[in-house]
Structure formats: structure tokens, C-alpha cells
């Protein structure tokens, strides 16, 4: 069996510096999201739900919390005897140590891993996007087109197209041009950074790329353009659905708020496509008398006495009597003391908001990022 063996390589090394102090102590993929998850859970759960049984996770930047989160992969059912999940950090060999210098280089350095797993196809994923995708659809498209590489693309609003890597295609969806952040986009199909490669082809180009001293060893900037120049069969697969690259604090806040929208297409309640995450074994949350919770998500272990509106509460949060929380994202372990008011804020793990303290304002259109180091406004 096991025809069409796919191994996924999940790039989880990024620092995500535009997220500011949200990523002070953790890699971007480890940032909490959606009341319960960390960002990487989406890509990991997609892989698990797509039946991909081997996945390599390429880490580099402050991997400690990420490693704790992933553990042995049991949450995603990747704790297997054979195959399963493998964390792949940089390492040393006879010629000394090498850090990963780019996305392609990170995969290149782990050719040994790929050779041992011996897949037919390699799926490159990025650990910092919020979306649900059945990678089998991409694989089937890839097989149908007999492609060397297939790139998942998504329609973005025309006015935002110039912020993305745009993919220009012919009528058969074959890629004819890459247009990195074009001033005048010919197209509004943006690359999602999700690539399905035929392994032999990828292997060949990783080696070519590694030998090229001028390369930055990046898939988007170097490997894919080189493959295109060599006239390989490269196709764009049109993904329809919710997808968000939470690059800034504002887009992070917005993506969280999206979950409260009735028409949000990212249905986290779908039992056929669960988003898995590390479980903390907390009891159900308790809602006291005289409290109010509307249009909000609340996770386990919370103790709520105040008023919660239009907000996302992670686990283990205490909201005392008279406190009011509105349009905010509250990370695990936060305490909001009596009478405090929180508006349009992102409050990071274990911060305490003092009694009567006021954070943010309902109507100035700004987002307040509250960490142990203070408050940043965006």
C-alpha cells in the first residue's frame, strides 16, 4: 500500500518580529490563538487530519516552548513507533555547525531525514498560518497535473495583492511567472507558502541551490524561480477558504475576532476536522451568579464573575466581580481584578490587570498589547 507517500516539512523556525513582544520568548508558531490553540496547531492538525504520517518540524528560534507544546506529538497522534513526528533542529557535522540560513536550506540540511523516510512527495508547510486545508486535495491536483511542484494559492483583495508573492498562471493553471510584491499586480492569486514537490525534483533543486553561493536559500526567492527558469511543470492550486497570515498584532487580534463572527468560514467545531492541541487537563470553567458572558469564547479552568463581551478567553483566567472585558484576547493564566476594564486588548500570559485598572478604549480603533513589560499600542 502506501502509494503516494507524502512527508510534510513544517517550517517553524521563524521569529515573527512584527508580532513584537508577543514573540519575545517564543517562536511565532507557538503564539496562542483562538482561545485554546497555538498557531502551529492548525498546520499540524491539517497534516494529521490529512493522514500524513511523517512530519518533520524544522525549528531554530527559541524552540523551548514550542518543544514543550509539541512534546512527543501525542496530541496530534504523531507519537508512533515508525514514522510520526520528528523535530529537526540545526546540528553539527565534521565541518562544524550550520544554522539554517533560509527555508530551502533548512530542508536541504535534512536531506538525510527525507532520504530515510523515502517519500514520493514532499509537502512544505509553514507553521504560522491560520487555516484548515485537506492536503490530499493539493496532492490529487499535483498528481492530475503530473506536476513537479504545485503551489497553493489564494485569491486576495486586489488592493492588497501588492503585499503578496503573486503567481501568474496560464489557462491550465500552469505557473508562468512569479511576481514578488508587484507594484502593478497582473493577478490577485497569492502564494500561501504551501508547496507540494515531487521528491526527486525537490532533491535535485535543493542540491543545486545549496551549491549556488549567491542564493539566499529561500523557496520563494530562489528555488522556485530557478525551477521555473528550467521550465519544470509548476502549477497553482486554487485554495478556497479561510487563510490568515497573522503577521502583525492587529491582524492577530482580527483573526481571533473572526472566530466570533457567525459567518466565519473557519469552523473550529467541525468534528471531522478537529484542531488538536496540547491538553492541560483543567476542569470546566465556572460562571458565577451576576456574571454575563455574551458573544465570546471561554476555555477550561476559567473562573468568571464579571462581564465578558465579544472576547476570546484562553484557559485558567480569573475575572473578578465588576470587571468588564470587551473585544479582547486574553491569554492563559491572566487575572483581571475587580472593577478593571479591558477594551480592544491582547493580554499575554499570566499578566495581572489590577483592581479598577483601565486598558484600552472602546472607540479609538487601536489595539493594545499588554505584556509583563508594559503596554504597546498599535
Amino acid at each position, binding site marked *: 500500500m502506501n502509494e503516494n507517500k507524502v512527508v510534510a516539512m513544517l517550517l517553524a523556525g521563524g521569529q515573527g518580529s512584527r508580532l513584537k513582544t508577543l514573540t519575545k520568548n517564543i517562536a511565532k508558531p507557538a503564539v496562542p490563538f483562538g482561545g485554546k490553540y497555538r498557531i502551529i496547531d492548525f498546520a499540524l492538525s491539517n497534516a494529521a487530519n490529512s493522514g500524513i504520517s511523517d512530519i518533520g518540524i524544522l525549528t531554530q528560534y527559541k524552540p523551548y516552548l514550542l518543544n514543550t507544546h509539541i512534546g512527543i506529538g501525542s496530541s496530534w497522534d504523531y507519537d508512533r513507533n515508525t514514522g510520526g513526528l520528528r523535530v529537526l533542529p540545526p546540528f553539527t557535522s565534521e565541518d562544524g555547525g550550520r544554522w539554517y540560513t533560509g527555508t530551502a536550506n533548512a530542508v536541504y540540511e535534512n536531506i538525510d531525514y527525507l532520504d530515510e523516510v523515502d517519500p514520493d512527495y514532499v509537502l512544505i508547510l509553514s507553521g504560522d498560518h491560520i487555516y484548515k486545508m485537506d492536503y490530499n486535495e493539493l496532492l490529487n491536483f499535483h498528481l492530475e497535473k503530473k506536476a513537479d511542484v504545485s503551489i497553493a494559492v489564494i485569491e486576495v483583495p486586489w488592493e492588497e495583492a501588492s503585499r503578496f508573492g503573486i503567481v501568474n498562471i496560464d489557462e491550465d493553471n500552469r505557473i508562468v511567472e512569479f511576481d514578488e510584491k508587484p507594484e502593478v499586480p497582473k493577478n490577485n492569486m497569492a502564494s500561501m507558502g504551501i508547496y507540494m514537490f515531487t521528491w526527486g525534483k525537490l532533491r535535485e533543486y535543493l542540491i543545486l541551490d545549496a551549491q549556488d553561493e549567491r542564493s539566499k536559500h529561500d523557496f520563494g526567492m530562489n528555488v522556485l524561480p530557478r525551477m521555473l527558469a528550467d521550465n519544470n511543470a509548476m502549477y497553482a492550486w486554487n485554495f478556497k477558504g479561510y487563510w490568515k497570515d497573522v503577521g502583525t498584532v492587529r491582524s492577530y487580534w482580527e483573526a481571533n475576532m473572526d472566530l466570533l463572527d457567525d459567518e466565519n468560514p473557519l469552523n473550529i467545531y467541525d468534528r471531522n476536522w478537529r484542531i488538536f492541541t496540547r*491538553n492541560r487537563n*483543567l476542569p*470546566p470553567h465556572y460562571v458565577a451568579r*451576576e456574571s454575563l458572558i*455574551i458573544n*465570546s469564547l471561554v476555555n477550561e479552568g476559567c473562573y468568571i464573575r464579571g462581564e465578558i463581551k465579544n472576547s476570546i478567553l484562553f484557559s485558567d483566567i480569573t475575572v473578578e466581580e465588576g470587571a468588564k472585558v470587551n473585544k479582547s484576547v486574553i491569554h492563559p493564566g491572566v487575572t483581571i481584578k475587580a472593577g478593571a476594564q479591558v477594551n480592544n486588548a491582547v493580554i499575554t500570559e499570566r499578566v495581572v490587570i489590577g483592581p479598577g485598572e483601565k486598558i484600552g478604549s472602546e472607540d479609538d480603533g487601536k489595539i493594545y498589547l499588554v505584556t509583563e513589560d508594559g503596554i504597546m499600542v498599535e
Partner: protein
Amino acid sequence: MEKCIGVISVNNSVDNKFGSLCRHRPPYMLPIGGRYRLIDFAISNLVNHGVRNIAIYTGDKIRSTMDHLGDGKPWDLNRRFSGLFLFPPVYDERYKLPYSDIAQYHSTEIFFEQVKEKYVFIANPLIIAKLNISQAFKYFLESGADITMVYNKRYDPFGEFINVENMHIDKEGRLIDIGMNLGTQKSFNHYLEMLFMKKDLFLEIIRETIESGEAHYFKEALLARKDRYKINTYEFKGHVDYIRDIKTYYEANFNLLKKDVSMELFFEGGTIYTKTKDEPSTLYKETANVQNSLIANGCVIEGNVDSSIIFRGVKIGKNAIVKNSILMQKSVVEDGAIIVNSILDKQAKVRKGASIAGSPLMPYVVEKYAEVTKD
């Protein structure tokens, strides 16, 4: 605590007091507190006190037990050479009473001989008491007793604990005898059906009684020997629930709405582990109104909930009223339905506009998968 093996042994005598709730599950598998099963408390407490080997005599109807406990992974008991050992009942006609606890213990004699632990701790999973097992074990060891039994001093002026075991203790804390509490006195010592003893003594008593035929139940054999061994007692001072019928089951759930009880059971002295389900957070819609309730994950709430226990994945529609009720996993309350003093078993459904109500002494129970429609 690596010196002590945990033995969880089921008292079958209460099986028929739970009505349809226990048609397909043993009582220790009853759901409680929004996401747990009764037995989770006993297992988690053992694990949190460092007990590495736990033997469970499952009784019958074990498919739900096997599904829930499986290999013991939620408790990190899926170990290679220790962990969780499930012993389903074995029928061997050579025993006088094949399904008695003594016969079942005897059928696993080799298991006890092969484990390295020198002591056993036996517990009844229907009694919830977050005993500090480490401290009690230390007391047992230091006191030099052959057996230490755990009790709870109970002030019970309203006779809520009629027919439970009443332990008589002398001034030195030694066991005099165990009888039944008939409520003639306002206070009594409730024996919590937990005890420590040396493994060798445990096996010796089992062999003796199998050979002599004198006793069928282990407690019986113990009490017959109360003068031969040094049996002392250890007082547990925390919260106790003894789930022995629908009423006590119902009350034990509501006790968890009290902050002191939920702090003691859920947070102090270690987490309660259970099988996880990966439900997302609970969504409160615009019309939700929840008061004094315990709400598990994965619910979508649009109606009114008061003083209730809501398990994982429950849906409560607009204008629905849920009060003093227990809604088990994935049960559904449709728009405008009214549910008072009731228990909905797993995946039960109360349809639009239907209403059900029981009494606090005898809650109304809707069976697993059953549906209640408006007349």
C-alpha cells in the same frame, strides 16, 4: 509511593440503584463534573501521589471501561513494565463464590507476586475523597500497623448518610469494629473503604480464606481477623462524596459548584486527568445567560443556564431554560425547551419547546441517545 500498588475494586452491590444510567456502564464510569468519570478521581489521586502500578477489578459491562481507560495514557500509566492493569472478572468454578472479590484477587495472585511493590492501597472508586495518600502512607508505615483504614468524621444531623459503614475506633485509634450507620447518632465515623496493608499479608489472608472457605468478601475476612492484626485508622478531613444511587450522584455533581469543593477536588494536591476530546472553547452567543454553572468545552450556548453541570459538546438553544440539571456529553436542548431537576445522558435530545422536570430527590433521567419531544 513506588512501594505501594493501587488496587481499585468495585463494589457491585449498588449497580441497580442508578436505573438507566448504569444500563451500559458500571457505576464508577458515571460522568461527573462536566468532563470526568467517577473513577478518574481515584486513579488521578493515586498517580499524583506517585503510585506507578494500579490494578482495577473492572466488574462487568467493561466495554465502556476499556474505551475510557484504554492503556491509561491520560494518566501516563501506559508504561512498559508497570502502569494500569485491568482485570475483568474471571469465572472459575473451583471458587465457592467465583465473582467475590476474594476469588478475583486470588485469580491474580501471580500478578501481585511479580510486582515489586511491598504494600497495597485498596480503594473504592465510588467514594470521592482527595486523600493525601503520601501522608496517610507515611502514617501507616511509621505507626507500624499491619493495616491502616481511612475514615471521615461525619456530622450528619439530617441522616443523609444512612446505611453507610460506621467505624468504631478506640481511644488509641485502633479499629474496634465496623457496622452500619442507622442515623441514631448525629456524628459517626464513616469508613471510606480505603486501606493500606502489606502485600504479603494481603496475599496471606486471601490464601487463608480460599483454603478455609470462611469468607467470600475481603472486608469480612479482615474483620474476622481484627484482633489478630494491628489495625489502626487514619482520619481524612476533606470533602467526601459517596455515590451510591441517583440522588447521591446528582448531589455530588452540584457539590462541585461550591468554590471550596471544586478548589479541593480540581486544584489542591494535583490535577484530575481524564481522556481528552479536543473540543474547542465554549461559544456564548448574544442571547446566552449563564449563572452559577460549570461549563465544559465545546458547547454552544444561546439560552439560559442556572445551577447546572454542562458536559462537553452540549448545545443549548435560544430561550431554552436549564436549571439544576446535569447535561451529559453532546446532549442537545433545542430552542425554548425547559429542563429542571433533570439528567440528560449522553447525546440525549430535548426537542423544541418540550419540557421535563424531576425533583431534587429523584431527578428525571433521559436515557442515552433518547429524544424528548413536545408531547
